[in-house]
């Protein structure tokens, strides 16, 4: 929480003004009962109607003054809290933009989204709450005690009994309640978890006829949730009755002891009346303070999650000497490259990889799931940094090239296709904002996307839903390829990016790509041998090591792993 405090700094003037105005507001509220006491004890006692009216008018005047304070508090607290949340959100987003793939993997998308949305909102709420309530409650409490003391210190002794009772009651309830509520939250997550699983897995549930099993599973989760929730709510539900009882009984006490003092002549009736009001104000301010504690504890979790993101070190960044030169030829050398994901123990994912891709060459990478193919290509644009060894592009270590220059000369189509809401054209232009329409169409044709795009009534202006929901998997992949081609890269990386494209289309795509990509160094990760036959070099990865590298003809002769893969796809009779 403390680490977020610096966000208040730019708005410190408003942040200080708000509590000052609050004093005005609180003061007007505290003065009213005192004047009321005067009306009773002076005005009524002496039958002085003028005095009564005069005091009444003063009271109204004070009340109206109070609104200035009240409105000021609202205006400043709103401004400050909204500004702070906007700033935090901005910083978070900026930070995430600079995240390496490693950090992105670590945090998980859904968790990052929650942090940016819900958690920031929580902080915003606590800031408003803080400025409106947290400061007000102690002010009221202290002010009330002072007023009570000035009226009659003897009677104020009642507070010595009631305040501890309230504080202890609230503390006990909260101490017991907090842990309960975190269990409630966990159980609720459990209930929601079963629900979510059943929604996404409904086909399987139905296919295996497991409704009864799932119902039972849900019942358990639901029952546990209910039981703990009832327990927690009942406990916290005691707060209000207990509070009211203590407060009301202390009023009874005030009247009784006030009566004694009035009888002795130490006190007047109006003062007893005012005292009752102060008493309730003081006790209520304790309840408010309890609220602030609850708010804080809730916001604390959010604050921690935000700070965690903000404090993540950016592990991949430009050095000062990094060159801004863009890639001219596209020669790629791996020299003894080893890689291991941060925090992962055991064997490295890649072990001492060395090879060279000459400008314009096509290098295909084959290998089983988990052999390190994707990791290998992700190292080239520095989405991860090598653990050992180095990668050279045009004889320059990638770590010595500015990230922006490096990545703007490399195009990459990821395994998982991500399109964005907007038109197809908007998505394509991610690759190149300034390309002409002809260029765009040409590229789409190469990616075998032009035909289906123009079959839509809006053509290139067809709006895609979030993540391109209205397209089939194969269509999305082809748009993603076109988007990458728009860049006219010196280096192109296709990471299993035609898996959902049917084979006929894929064959056409390959021919077109081959024609277009002369002079572009290309890396293709693929599952099907048919996709890699035409490559200049085929690399076979096995457990993070290069099992062999060569042309199809060479590999089919000498590489056992390759022969295996080949057989698995084409059947024995084809060999």
């Amino acid at each position, binding site marked *: 929480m403390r680490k977020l405090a610096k966000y208040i700094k730019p708005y410190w003037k408003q942040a200080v003004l708000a509590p000052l105005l609050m004093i005005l507001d609180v003061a007007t509220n505290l003065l009213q009962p005192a004047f009321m006491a005067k009306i009773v004890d002076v005005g009524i006692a002496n039958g002085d109607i003028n005095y009564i009216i005069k005091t009444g008018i003063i009271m109204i005047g004070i009340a109206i003054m109070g609104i200035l304070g009240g409105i000021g508090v609202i205006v400043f607290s709103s401004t400050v809290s909204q500004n702070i*949340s906007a700033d935090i959100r901005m910083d978070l987003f900026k930070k995430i933009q600079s995240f390496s793939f490693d950090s992105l993997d670590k945090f998980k998308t859904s968790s990052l989204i929650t942090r940016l949305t819900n958690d920031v909102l929580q902080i915003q709420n606590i800031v*408003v709450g803080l400025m409106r309530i947290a400061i007000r409650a102690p002010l009221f409490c202290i002010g009330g005690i002072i007023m009570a003391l000035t009226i009659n210190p003897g009677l104020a002794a009642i507070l010595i009994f009631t305040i501890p009772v309230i504080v202890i009651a609230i503390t006990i309830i909260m101490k017991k309640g907090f842990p309960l*509520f975190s269990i409630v939250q966990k159980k609720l997550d459990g209930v929601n978890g079963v629900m979510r699983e059943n929604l996404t897995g409904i086909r399987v549930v139905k296919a295996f006829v497991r409704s009864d099993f799932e119902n039972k599973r849900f019942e358990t989760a639901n029952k546990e949730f209910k039981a703990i929730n009832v327990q927690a709510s009942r406990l916290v539900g005691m707060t209000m009755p207990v509070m009211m009882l203590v407060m009301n009984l202390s009023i009874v006490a005030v*009247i009784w002891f006030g009566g004694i003092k009035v009888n002795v002549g130490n006190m007047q009736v109006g003062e007893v009346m005012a005292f009752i009001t102060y008493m309730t104000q003081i006790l209520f301010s304790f309840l408010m303070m309890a609220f602030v504690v609850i708010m804080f504890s809730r916001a604390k979790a959010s604050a921690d999650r935000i700070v965690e993101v903000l404090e993540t070190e950016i592990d991949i960044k430009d050095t000062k000497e990094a060159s801004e030169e863009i890639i001219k030829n596209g020669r790629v050398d791996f020299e003894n490259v080893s890689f291991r994901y941060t925090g992962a123990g055991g064997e490295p994912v890649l072990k001492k990889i060395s090879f060279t891709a000459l400008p314009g060459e096509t290098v295909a990478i084959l290998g089983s799931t988990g052999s390190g193919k994707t990791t290998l290509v992700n190292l080239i644009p520095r989405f991860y940094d090598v653990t050992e060894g180095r990668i050279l592009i045009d004889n320059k270590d990638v770590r010595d090239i500015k990230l922006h220059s490096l990545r703007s000369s490399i195009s990459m189509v990821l395994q998982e296709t991500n399109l964005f809401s907007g038109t197809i054209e908007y998505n394509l232009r991610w690759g190149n904002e300034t390309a002409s329409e002809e260029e765009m169409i040409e590229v789409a044709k190469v990616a075998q996307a032009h035909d289906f795009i123009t079959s839509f009534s809006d053509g290139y202006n067809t709006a895609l839903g979030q993540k391109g929901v209205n397209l089939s998997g194969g269509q999305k992949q082809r748009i993603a390829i076109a988007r990458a081609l728009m860049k006219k890269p010196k280096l192109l990386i296709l990471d299993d990016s035609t898996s959902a494209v049917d084979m*006929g289309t894929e064959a056409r795509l390959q021919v077109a790509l081959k024609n277009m990509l002369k002079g572009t160094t290309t890396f293709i990760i693929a599952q099907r041998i048919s996709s890699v036959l035409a490559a200049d070099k085929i690399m076979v990865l096995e457990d993070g090591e290069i099992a062999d590298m060569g042309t199809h003809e060479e590999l089919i002769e000498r590489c056992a792993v390759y022969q295996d893969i080949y057989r698995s796809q084409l*059947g024995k009779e084809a060999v």
Partner: protein
Amino acid sequence: MLNDKSVNKPQVRPGFGRGPGGHGHMSGMMGPKVKTKDAKGTMKKLWKYFAKQKGQYLLVIILVLGSTLLSLVGPLLIGYGVDVLTAGKGLVDFNKLFTILIWMGLAYLLSALMNWVQIYVMVGVAQDTVWQIRTDLFAKIQTLPLKFFDSRLHGDIMSRLTNDVENINNTLSQSATQLIASIITVLGTMGMMLYLSPVLTLISLIAFPLGMYISLKIAGNSRKYFAGQQKELGMLNGFIEETISGQKVVKTFCREEKSLETFSEDNQKLKKVGIKAQIFSGFIMPVMSVVNNINFAIVAAVGGWMSVKGMITVGVIASFLNYTRQFSRPINEIANQFNMIQSGLAGAERVFEIMDEKPEFEDNAGAPEITKVAGDVNFNNVSFGYKKGITVLKGVNIVARAGQTIALVGPTGAGKTTIVNLLTRFYDIDEGTITVDGKDIRTVEKDSLRKCLGIVLQDTYLFSDTVRENIRYGRLESSDVEVENAARIANADSFILRLPEGYDTVLTEDGMNLSQGQRQLLTIARAILANPAILILDEATSSVDTRTEMNIQKAMLSLMKGRTSFVIAHRLSTIRDADEILVVNGGEIIERGTHKELLEAEGFYFDLHSSQQRKIS
């Protein structure tokens, strides 16, 4: 009940402090008003749930009434007490004062007690009711046809299951009882005040219409800004979600700057409208506070004047000061509580919409179970469309004899998966018949039909439990040894043993700690364990690399022996040994035969095949 006269004190509700799921009231966030389409109908349906616990709900209402009425007596007695004190020095009648205070203490004690019991009981009943709703809803979901899930966003269903149900809970356990209490308080206070002094009542209420008018004005304005804020927030959250999900793409295209720009703009917009919304809604507090203070002043001054004139006693002033304070809060809250109840009703309506959905076709009464299936499957002239008027399958005929392997190939969207959907009766056909062992599948019990089908689907479903339990899902009564055997046959054994806790490794909710290929292996193991007569593999190995696939296939081949198998694959290599290959295109079977026959026919299949083989020869 005596209250602090500041209006912006937090409202303590019985459920305060609930987890992050609860709605904090200090947020100053009020959503746009939600309207119910059919409030009456929804209430009727809710009533069915209440009716089961009529007695307890009645008890709660009685307790609310009792505790509220008792708390109304307090200020009256305060007034009496003050009157005793006005006698002045040496003249206070302590006997009388004692009696009054005893009554007062008793009233407050009883009121607090009833309040506590009411909350205690209410929490229990409300949770019972909501629990029942949740259970029913989940059971209902289980019976709904696949069509329902295919045609709706999961997020929407999820939000009904969670937020909306939670909303009903809040409405029940808090708003409803509070609304009753508020109304009684307002009416009761009014009655008490009129009883004490009609004139002072009228005068003390002068400021209220003014306050009400101002707050209504403010509320109207702030609703406008809130709608704006909601819109901007939606935009920004949408942008966040999309960008962060596609963050890797953003990086590959160096779009960080660009997305920062967009974000910054949206963020500023949200901030601007957010400030306005918050200020406007916040105004209600100081305005009500000043109205209260003015009232306080008026009651004190006018009451003082009346008291001098002998019209009322000082005690009446004391009572009034307390009553007027107690009067304003519920009035402010009634509107809020109405909104809460409205949104609770809207939530209930959305929940009942699901409850009212038509369940999956019921079995015909007395439909026989189908067991010990040999595995003859026939499709006779089957036509089907997901939507009326759009046929996806046209006159499909398939004959699979027991033990045969039938492969389905064809481009995406050709209707391969639809054939599976029909055989499992996820959807019912429009025309023709499908028979298993000569029995029309519509005449046999649905569950028994599915039990003899083993299905491995494209989308893997793993739930958050151990690997072992996930495999056991195939046959719940199987032993650990059987589970491990199945895993071994599916070639999943070796990677499972490499997991931190082996078979007892707990999978995360969506199985994210496994690779796509590994997840597939687990679902294959599950199907192996199920040991069905008919096996359906819908692109089951698409996410597994070809070598792993080859290994699985070895296992599959032995598994498929003696079973009728339907294999859908876009890798032709995986299906060349099938007894019959059906080439599906445009919802029709355009070619059929063995691998060899189809190649010789030099048709569609030949083209598909040669596109894979072309460059080899």
